[in-house]
């Protein structure tokens, strides 16, 4: 089958002359377009220090006759309601079945009784090759039912774990088919009309450098979301690098441990940076180049959660087996809550925040935003501050903080002291409450959209270093 692709490309080159390529494109489009969905979620943002709602526009596609729809997490995540417009212009609400920020995939379920919706056919992204003609369908800039054409530029682009949106578990299909804000979540299809990817990102500042999640990586995630509502993964608390980060010697096999989270299971088991993992539970692992990393990372993620696993680790000349009991990988970001009376929003800590802030434990919460003109802003509290204690009592998490917050408000206290960590420094932040008074003016001011979460759902750019 694979050899057909170059032929299709040649045909595509003649498409404007009305050759068979044009028919192939139209045939493929006709096959998939009935399953195309225009998605308008109402999302929540906490970055301004208060809970704010805003509308984004994205794309998606129906994958089952009973109404499961696939889109991006950055389209439908953190949403309070999702309105879908089907190809026949029917407007139907959907519920979010679950999301997976690590792969940027969300699954929706249309609120319909019928079970005969047009489902797209999922193809096999292992069988694509650069140069093959592809179509991107979706709602660029909110313009629904749009189609653009291009080729597969690269089949296995690695976008890495760094940056605001890490993508550790998959490589990406790079395409020159035009992908714009609003295309996010829409299908990338081959000339057989099969979905081979989910259009998700573009490189801003570049021309037609777009990225789609390969459907083979998505398939498993979609299944897990439908089954569990999320994707359970094992975590041991290491960051891995490809072998070429240390040596170009192809005989050296394994994967390099670049960093060890001091509070993770791997640190407790004695892992050290520079170790080379050569096997997991007796099965060899190898990542010579960075594109090979997602497979290894996925091997670790697929280990049974909370069970011991044996890592064969080479340190210097010696290879030893290290037993690690895996933990479940924490949420990509902590739950966010608005504390309106005090004028800020806060989130639970994640291991990444704990490690970056060098906290001795994972106790505390992080300030997600501070609303202008509130007691929190007045006190000097800032986004990113880590609150360790309230009135001298340590807090473990958002739930505990919520309890203290409610109790203090009920008691009508005037002054509340927060112990705050900001970088290497600690500070006392005194909140001067005005019991009974409303803080902030909810009616005033327009909602200012956060650029990243806002109208441009696929505006994120991969690190240009990539």
């Amino acid at each position, binding site marked *: 089958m694979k050899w057909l692709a170059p032929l299709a490309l040649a045909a595509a080159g003649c498409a404007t002359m009305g050759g068979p390529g044009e028919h192939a494109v139209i045939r493929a489009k006709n096959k998939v377009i009935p399953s195309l969905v225009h998605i308008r979620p109402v999302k929540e943002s906490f970055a301004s220090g208060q809970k704010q709602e805003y509308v984004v526009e994205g794309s998606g596609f129906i994958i089952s006759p009973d109404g499961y729809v696939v889109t991006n997490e950055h389209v439908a995540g953190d949403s309070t309601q999702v309105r879908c417009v089907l190809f026949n212009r029917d407007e139907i609400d959907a519920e979010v079945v679950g999301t997976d920020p690590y792969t940027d995939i969300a699954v929706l379920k249309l609120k319909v009784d019928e079970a005969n919706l047009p489902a797209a056919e999922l193809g096999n992204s292992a069988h694509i090759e650069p140069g093959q003609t592809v179509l991107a369908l979706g709602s660029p800039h909110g313009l629904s039912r749009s189609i653009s054409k291009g080729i597969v530029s690269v089949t296995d682009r690695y976008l890495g774990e760094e940056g605001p949106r890490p993508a550790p578990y998959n490589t990406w299909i790079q395409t020159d088919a035009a992908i714009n804000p609003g295309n996010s979540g829409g299908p990338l299809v081959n000339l057989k009309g099969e979905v081979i990817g989910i259009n998700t990102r573009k490189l801003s500042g570049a021309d037609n450098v777009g990225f789609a999640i390969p459907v083979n990586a998505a398939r498993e995630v979609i299944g897990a979301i439908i089954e569990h509502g999320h994707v359970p993964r094992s975590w041991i608390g290491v960051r891995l690098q490809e072998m070429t980060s240390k040596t170009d010697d192809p005989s050296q096999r394994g994967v390099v441990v670049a960093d060890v989270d001091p509070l993770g299971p791997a640190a407790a088991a004695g892992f050290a940076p520079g170790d080379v993992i050569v096997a997991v539970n007796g099965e060899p692992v190898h990542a010579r180049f960075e594109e090979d990393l997602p497979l290894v990372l996925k091997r670790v993620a697929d280990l049974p959660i909370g069970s011991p696993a044996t890592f064969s680790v080479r340190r210097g000349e010696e290879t030893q087996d290290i037993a690690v009991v895996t933990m479940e990988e924490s949420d990509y970001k902590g739950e966010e809550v608005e504390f309106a009376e005090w004028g800020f929003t806060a989130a639970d800590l994640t291991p990444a925040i704990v490690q970056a802030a060098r906290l001795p434990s994972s106790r505390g919460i992080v300030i997600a935003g501070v609303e202008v003109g509130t007691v929190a802003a007045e006190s000097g509290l800032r986004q990113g501050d880590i609150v360790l204690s309230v009135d001298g009592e340590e807090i473990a998490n958002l739930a505990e903080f919520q309890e203290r917050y409610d109790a203090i408000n009920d008691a009508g206290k005037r002054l509340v002291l927060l112990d705050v960590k900001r970088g290497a*420094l600690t500070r006392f932040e005194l909140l001067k409450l005005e019991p009974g008074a409303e803080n902030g003016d909810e009616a005033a001011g327009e909602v200012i959209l956060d650029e990243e979460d806002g109208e441009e759902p696929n505006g994120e750019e991969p690190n240009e270093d990539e």
Partner: protein
Amino acid sequence: MRTNSLVALWIVTGLAAGLAAAPAAEEAGAFSPAFIAAQQKAIAPAICLLNFTAEVESQRTGETQKRSTRALGLIVSPDGLVMTHGHMQSDKSDPSNIRVVVGEGEEDKEYDGVFLKKPDDINVCFVRIQGEEGERFPCVTFASDGNLGLGEQVLLFGIMGETLDFARGALTRMISAVIEKPRTTYCIDEAIPFGYVGAPVIDSRGRIAGVVGYDLAPTEGGELYVRSGHPLVYQAPLFAKYIQNPPTEDTLEADQPIAWIGVFSQPLTDDLAEYWGLPKKGGVVISTVVEGSPAEAAGIQRGDVITSFDGMPMRAKKNSEIVGFTKLVRETDVGREIPVKILRSGQPVDISIVLTERPVSAKDAEEFVEETFGLTVRALTTDVRILLNLPDETQGVIVRRVKSGSWAHLAGMRPGVIVLRFGEYPVTSIGEFEAAVNKVKEARPAEVPVFCRVGARTGFFRLQPRWE
């Protein structure tokens, strides 16, 4: 007493330069053409043009490139001391190839200049003209107080651009704001052309109140270059001591050790006092105690409130008032036992503390230029540790510059990366880095893994030397 002696000095220098006394403006807010012309005649000869080579740093590699540039200089003493804006020096790179052009047009004369150590409490620089033995230069005489008023008109003399033959020009501006903390600061109402940065500021009485400046010096506000980007007047008393006792030529010589206590603090606001049940008299709340600092050794704890330091009552209630404490600490004698009164959980406690010399800052840190791989590294200093929130166990050297096209550059290394291991050798100091590099150079391996910290994470860079 100090003021009197300075006044005396200025009178002497003014006479020595033989400058005619200019008349005062007839009324505030209106400089007559005659007044401006007279002032120009008196002051313009003391304005000179500084041509020099500066180093400009690339953000990407930290490398510096040389650039020819100019600045306005003001001759402030008859023996050829020139004052100019602090921008003449950036970080550790002193300007070079300094040429001072005195006078204008046909009558200009060019001299070599020597850069003097930059003061750290006022953002100005000094250059010494290398004139003939006993040569005297026209110079300006500053007012002793430098006080200005809100709304007061001021007259500035500066240098026009190259296309205008560096002609001396005049501008009028107004004092648009007077800020009292951390020290009296006069803001100028409008932007200033490039050739007027460092220009003399003449008040409505015809006195030279100070010079045009930008930014407070790091030690003036406790923060790096606060109030950046707005033209200010540096009033004469701020730099008078440097005219009287010019800085030395040795740029690395520390004249007086600066004392260090090793705490971060915040003011005891009335609300905090109420919360803790303390008297609402202000104080210095210790919010962070730096590990290994004199404060830690003396048993100072987070949450302690300093009410008296070396006999001086501490009454900070606002953020801007903390500066007084910071300044007092800096100027305290190193090594002397200082009595400190604190409130701990509301109870008075007397402690004594011996301050040490302030740890070397990144700006003055030991630097090592490694030519083979193209890395310039610095020792990890306390200020960098705090800035980057580095734990004690992180020992290494921080990359300052990466030479363009070098092996380090090719490997993706960049300024700010902390080298923890070079090849198989752990690096905890400049000396160890140098030794590690030398061992690697001897062994000439085909590739060198370098273990580094980048931000909150660690990882490897692989250098691929092309040994000749």
